[in-house]
């Protein structure tokens, strides 16, 4: 039986005011504000030990010896783990590209500062850390590989000797007649960009409790796991266990944003449990560990990029060369990060041809990991900055240049040169609304007045497309083993008609439990208070993926609706039997199976569920006494990529335009955001407050990436950032309180018309701020093409401009 998933909220079988589409209070929140949620460090198991990890102080060194005898004899210590145990018991973690994975702990040599070298399990964390000081490690220092340039030089030291090179992956894509459009262009606008490392830094670091049952060879891991099933498969691989003997129990998470890490910490705690006779071992990463070596460093990128432009401002081609410093290994699936821009390579524009030349390089920086958006935030910064450079060179207003190049509403569904299909949109409409919301003419007047006073004000009008609801097909051409993106649920009614939805993921902050409760309540015609959402452990949950790729709100909605459609069929069969009516005469409405022509005649779902569970004598033959249904949703209509990576990869294409006003302090180089407006369209807003929270949160992270945050390393690959005193997270003073409005163009292909919306602001904000800074600098003939635009970088440009003015105009660009 083909299941049809409702594509609009109006199709839900309910006349009561719907929960879907309203900013209802979140079901997660009463426990969260009470402080009673079981974040992993709040969990305690009987006999639990505590793990502390000794980390390498060197970026590149051979391990000559590790002496753990004194640590083993120390107070409270039960087990010590070293690389020798790991070599004996483990395989390196999965990676993409394949073959660039590390073991959970250094074996033979260390490849970055902070890499685990040994670990201790003791009766308290304090005693475990005491014991670390007693471990003697002798290192033989090796020359570090600090930069991609060094890594790619002939005769460079090798980060992974067995690979014979430091280049993890080199791949060229060409879509359309790129050489021709560049040859025929009236202008070619090209720049080099540098995006320095930033990262997720959720407020809760990674943590887990692992217990290795030595009797039956089953490993149970509780922890702050973003993608539980994926994590379980990975652990089965690295720890050489059958996958059905790894149970992952996802606890609520204090944020994630892709950069939660976890594989190394989990494997280390698991192995310590194995050495400690099966006692549970807790590992809670501290912030310094996270900053040094957690899953929190992303996007260390060098771009060479160009637009081909006709005299009238029509952009016809886009070429990008990316060199990505992945650090010491690809355990964070670096290829995905580099390849994700294929899903929206040419942004909002009708650019006919494009080329992408990407090189992933290994160095002795920490391995990089996913972060909100995965690849598009830096890519969009490059594209949108080049649009602004073009606007300046052609003396066209940046909003007008974008307007001229937009994909037009009648062109949807629209296939971009890199292959993905955008489902729907009206970019011009969003642009006009945000220009009105920001009062763009007034901003320009304010800028002109400020410039006349010698002040540096800048304005940007920046837009992006957010590929939503990801699928692995996009990555099949870059060597990524597909793990699948099913999202499965079980919807169950109890004997009283209460509803429980079992899901495979846990809370991370986006409010998916609330969305799930809204959707199921509307379909089954119950109050949200009658619904409970519960996380199943990975061994019994339906196939699932969890948070990632702007997908879960859409995916869990599809899964619940699919299960509800199955329930409707079962309940209709039972009601038809009990009421002695043909099933075709019955419909589901407002929580009742009732006669189409006489709604008073029918049964409530609670009555049917109760009957099914308690009176098998009244059931029709062949119907199980089970008012429950499962459904596993995945995006429909996906196809395999061609040799240039082209395929329908991301189901939905939300989009937004941001208008920012910034001012640069001439004396200090400090940038202040004076005004910020957003108009977006992510289709149906299942819970508008959740959507606004995702937007504003993305803005904050974008502000951090654009202005403050940076993982700084010295020339020897020593990290200079190890605390929040060095890694500057934006506070309430730095993040603009934004003005927001929106349109709703329901996705024609997604459940209830909702599009993925968790990452878009992170794709847009860094570009919006950098473009506004460059608009401010334009009168000085200077451009900043590096992030973050920290005061010292801006100040240096101002100094150069000042001396240039003093020495006569030169018009140099940096």
């Amino acid at each position, binding site marked *: 039986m083909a299941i049809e998933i409702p594509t609009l909220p109006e199709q839900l079988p309910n006349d009561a005011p719907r929960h879907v589409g309203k900013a209802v*209070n*979140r079901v*997660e*929140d*009463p426990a*969260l*504000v*009470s*402080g*009673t*949620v*079981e*974040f992993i*460090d*709040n969990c305690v198991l009987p006999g639990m030990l505590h793990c502390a990890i000794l980390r390498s102080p060197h970026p590149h060194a051979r391990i000559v010896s590790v002496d753990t005898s004194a640590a083993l004899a120390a*107070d409270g210590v039960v087990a010590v783990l070293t690389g020798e145990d790991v070599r004996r018991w483990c395989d390196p973690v999965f990676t993409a590209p394949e073959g660039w994975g590390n073991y959970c702990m250094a074996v033979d040599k260390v490849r970055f500062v902070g890499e685990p070298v040994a670990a201790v399990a003791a009766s308290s964390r*304090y*005693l475990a850390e*005491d014991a670390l000081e007693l471990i003697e490690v002798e290192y033989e220092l090796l020359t570090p590989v600090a930069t991609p340039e060094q890594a790619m030089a002939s005769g460079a030291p090798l980060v992974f000797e067995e690979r014979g090179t430091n280049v993890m992956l080199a791949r060229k894509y060409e879509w359309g007649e790129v050489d021709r459009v560049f040859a025929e262009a009236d202008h070619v606008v090209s720049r080099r960009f540098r995006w320095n490392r930033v990262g*997720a*830094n*959720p*407020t*809760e*670091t990674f943590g887990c409790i692992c217990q290795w049952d030595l009797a039956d060879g089953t490993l149970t891991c509780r922890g702050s796991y973003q993608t539980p099933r994926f994590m379980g498969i990975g652990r089965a691989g690295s720890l050489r266990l059958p996958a059905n003997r790894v149970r992952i129990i996802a606890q*609520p*998470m*204090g*944020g*994630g*944003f892709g950069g939660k890490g976890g594989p190394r910490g989990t494997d280390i705690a698991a192995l310590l449990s194995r050495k400690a006779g099966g006692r549970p071992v807790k590992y809670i990463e*501290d*912030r*310094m560990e996270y900053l040094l070596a957690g899953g929190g460093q992303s996007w260390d990128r060098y771009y060479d990029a160009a637009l081909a432009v006709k005299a009238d401002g029509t952009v016809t081609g886009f070429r990008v060369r990316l060199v990505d410093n992945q650090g010491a290994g690809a355990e964070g699936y670096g290829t995905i990060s580099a390849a994700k821009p294929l899903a929206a390579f040419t942004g909002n524009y009708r650019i006919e041809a494009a080329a992408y030349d990407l090189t992933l390089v290994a160095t002795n920086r920490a391995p990089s990991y996913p972060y909100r958006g995965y690849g598009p935030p830096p890519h969009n910064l490059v594209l949108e900055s080049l649009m602004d450079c073009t606007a300046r060179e052609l003396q066209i207003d940046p909003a007008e240049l974008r307007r001229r190049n937009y994909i037009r509403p009648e062109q949807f569904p629209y296939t971009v040169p890199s292959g993905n299909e955008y489902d729907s949109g009206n970019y011009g409409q969003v642009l006009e609304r945000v220009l009105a919301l920001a009062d763009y003419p007034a901003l320009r007047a304010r800028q002109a007045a400020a410039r006349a006073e010698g002040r540096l004000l800048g304005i940007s009008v920046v837009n992006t497309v957010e590929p939503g609801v990801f699928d692995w097909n996009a990555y099949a051409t870059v060597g990524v083993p597909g793990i699948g993106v099913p999202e499965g649920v079980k919807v169950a009614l109890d004997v009283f008609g209460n509803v429980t939805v079992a899901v495979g993921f846990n*809370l*991370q*902050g*986006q*409010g998916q439990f609330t969305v799930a409760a809204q959707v199921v309540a509307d379909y089954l015609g119950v109050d949200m208070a009658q619904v409970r959402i519960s996380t199943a452990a990975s061994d019994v949950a339906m196939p699932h993926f969890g948070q990632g790729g702007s997908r879960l709100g859409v995916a869990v909605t599809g899964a619940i609706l699919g299960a509800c459609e199955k329930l409707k069929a079962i309940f209709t069969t039972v009601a038809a039997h009990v009421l002695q009516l043909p099933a075709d005469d019955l419909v589901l409405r407002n929580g009742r199976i009732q006669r189409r022509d006489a709604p008073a005649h029918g049964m409530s779902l609670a009555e049917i569920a109760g009957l099914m569970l308690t009176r098998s004598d009244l059931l029709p033959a062949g119907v199980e006494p089970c008012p429950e249904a499962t459904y596993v949703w995945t995006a429909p209509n996906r196809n395999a990529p061609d040799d240039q990576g082209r395929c329908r990869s991301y189901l939905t294409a939300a989009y937004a335009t941001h208008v920012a006003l910034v001012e640069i302090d001439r004396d200090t180089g400090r940038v202040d955001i004076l005004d910020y407006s957003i108009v977006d369209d992510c289709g149906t807003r299942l819970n508008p*407050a*959740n959507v*606004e*929270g995702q*937007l*504003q*949160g*993305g*803005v*904050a*992270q974008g502000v951090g990436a654009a202005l403050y945050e940076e993982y700084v390393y010295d020339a020897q690959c020593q990290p200079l950032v190890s*605390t*929040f*005193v060095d890694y500057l*997270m934006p*506070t*309430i*003073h730095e*993040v603009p*309180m*934004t003005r927001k409005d929106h349109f709703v163009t329901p996705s024609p292909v997604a459940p209830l018309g909702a599009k993925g919306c968790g990452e878009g602001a992170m794709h847009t904000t860094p570009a919006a701020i950098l473009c506004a800074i460059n608009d401010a600098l334009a009168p000085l003939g200077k451009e900043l093409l590096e992030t973050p635009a920290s005061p010292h970088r801006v100040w240096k440009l101002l100094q150069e401009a000042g001396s240039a003015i003093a020495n006569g105009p030169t018009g140099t660009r940096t």
Partner: protein
Amino acid sequence: MSSKQRIEVRVNGIRHVREVEPRLTLADFLRHDLGLGGTHVGCEHGICGACTVLIDDRSARACLTLAVQADGHEVATVESLRAPESGALHPIQQAFVDAHGLQCGFCTPGFMMTTLELLRGNPDPTEEQIKEALGGNLCRCTGYQSILESVKLAAQRMKPGAPA
């Protein structure tokens, strides 16, 4: 390892007498010795503010305070906010729920305890005063806008004479 010291500390109105190591942080004492897990630890170096509690009604970082320093003092944690029997939320908690002032909720106890201190001293704060008070707390999820709205809503509801 080091000799333990006897401390007497009143936490959320309950008197505790314990022997603790001098190096034990107040955060670990609250979380692991007393089982009050609502005080979360985000950085352990005093920047993020997730572990903010009140000591004698003044906000303090529980990660930078040693348990022995709380000897003879009164500590209030997020667990003190909710009504003990009915479970009714404190107006600050309810305001954070109603104004969607949290996402993952990990930093929220620190924000709420800071808000409690602010509103006790200044029942009608301006937006700038709210920002000044909350400037030492990091939130990675919300972008702060809904937190600002939550505090305004709490202030409005807690003003003397406001409808219950």
